[in-house]
């Protein structure tokens, strides 16, 4: 199945903006991993008084969407205050690119996450926020799962009510997730399982993640 990219995505892929690294950056963050095949590192220059992002550069490892989303993110970030950046949603990025194929939506999630992560690191260093220790509980699991998208339609699994059950045993570091899987989504079962596992493993103290699929009888739209 050929992937149909918008002209904007193609442009940002073939001619990406702000590639590279800022020497002596004020903030840096990496999201994703080579194992995922999707990874972005942002370096930022932030004005401490105005808290404006004066410069931003990226390096990435990933497909055409990965490169395009990273590139567009630098354009969205430049000139914004860190408060404005914290308000950014991945949908803003997708819109700026005139849309992404559903199966590539997760790239925009990664890009915005990486940018916010860099900003967050800067805020921590400058004492503007306190490190809120993440705990392993149902709430934090739900939080990391909100960004897990169904590749078929780009909609969050939580929003689509496909996460049927979440069980957390913090003492053992075990997490059990039950996901509703329709026939249309069977193709993506492995990919969905991997993503859920990866996202949950970013929480502290996780030792074992079990994802189970429940086949649904009728297809969801």
């Amino acid at each position, binding site marked *: 199945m050929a992937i149909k990219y918008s002209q904007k995505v193609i442009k940002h892929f*073939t001619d990406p903006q702000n590639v590279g690294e800022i020497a002596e950056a004020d903030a840096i963050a990496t999201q994703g*991993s*080579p194992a995922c*095949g999707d*990874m972005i590192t942002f370096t930022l220059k932030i004005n401490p008084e105005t808290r404006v992002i004066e410069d931003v550069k990226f*390096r990435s490892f990933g497909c055409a969407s*990965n490169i395009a989303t990273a590139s567009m993110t630098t354009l969205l970030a430049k000139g914004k205050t860190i408060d404005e950046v914290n308000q950014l949603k991945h949908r803003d990025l997708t819109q700026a690119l005139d849309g992404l194929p559903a199966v590539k939506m997760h790239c925009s999630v990664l890009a915005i996450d990486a940018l916010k992560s860099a900003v967050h690191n800067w805020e921590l260093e400058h004492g503007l926020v306190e490190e809120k220790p993440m705990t392993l509980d149902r709430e934090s699991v739900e939080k990391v799962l909100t960004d897990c998208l169904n590749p078929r339609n780009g909609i969050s699994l939580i929003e689509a009510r496909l996460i049927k059950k979440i069980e957390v045993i913090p003492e053992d570091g075990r997490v059990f997730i039950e996901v509703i899987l329709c026939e249309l989504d069977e193709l993506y079962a*492995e990919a969905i399982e991997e993503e859920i596992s990866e996202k949950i493993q970013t929480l502290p103290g996780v030792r074992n993640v079990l994802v189970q699929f429940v086949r649904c009888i009728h297809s969801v739209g």
Partner: protein
Amino acid sequence: MADRNVRPPRVKLMIYFDNNDTTPLHPDVLEVMLPYFKDKFGNPSSLHNLGLEAESAIDDARQIIAGAIGAKPAELIFTAGATESNNLAVFGAARANPKRRHLIISAVEHASVLNVAKRLEGEGYRVTRLPVDGQGYVSPDSLREAIDDDTFLISVVHANHEIGVIQDIRTLAEIAHEKGAWFHTDVAQALGKIPFDVDVLGVDLVSFNGHKLHGPKGVGGLYAGRKTRPRRLMEGAPQEFDLRPGTENVPAIVGFGKAVEIAVRDREEITPGVRSLTERLAEGLSGIEHTLLNGPHPDERLPGNLNVTFLYIEGEAILMHLSNRGICVSSGSACSSKSLTPSTVLTAIGLIHEEAHGAIRYSLSRFNTAGEVDEVIKATCQVVELLRSMTAFVPELHSERMGGRSFYRKR
């Protein structure tokens, strides 16, 4: 002499190195098909002259293809493609041998065989997936260990579509027969490129198709030996010896016959040229650093096939950049797959995700030239350099396994 000057019509400025995916029609093939789209539009099942003419056309094609693989015409049936043939072979063999419930396949089968096996597993069948070594070879010993009296079928692909590994079908089929099991092989990639004969290899069921050897899409064949007939899966009128109902795709079958005829006729003359071009490509790409060849040495693998991992960069991005330069290839990366998971074949030969993500498959045919190979090497160098200059994947930070390995890994 095999006419090397004949060329299919081509989109301007396109270099097509994705022949394991599909191939351009040989001009002679198109020519023999056309009348069957125009005046000779008969249904082979009809009793009037128009029908008889169509029936005769598919019979001729059947004779030629059967002869080419060493079979009798009555042992060859036409399907809509290799996927259907694989389904008919594996499901059909299961239904024909209801007392046995064990299926053995290799870990590097085509998706159609893998998924039929999964379905049978869901029905309560036992499925053994034979592992392969670092180059993709199935070991006969592993089959000897796995096979038992409950095994009804062993299915191992002759030449793999991603890494071109050619299995020792003859030995594996022998082992199958020792236990009274049937042996099926998918030769879609192999037919017309390496010698194949159903008797010499001793196989019972064989799948293949038209569009991998400069024939039309939408048509395939299944060879089934007289003593190893599968149960039909579809119901209808008794076409194709009662094994596959439905009005035959006459133009495609005629084209299929011509394509097989040409491929087998020219095989010995054309192959050395294709092999040397592939080696030229391999040599050129091996000059790029941090590059690995996936699968066997070019001498040993399917002529024309090459699968290379470019470390630290991703396959879909490489593919799209090459496509922008008019070069067609494919990738085994997760992002370029329909299911978003890296290729099962690359995983089976031991590649970790990071290595699979950077894999590109180049596949040449008789219509490619040395000039194109040099162009592709140059373009690949440029694209790889570009993507590496912007990569976030820094080996020292991310993996100790990378680097320090040579292009041609030893077996």
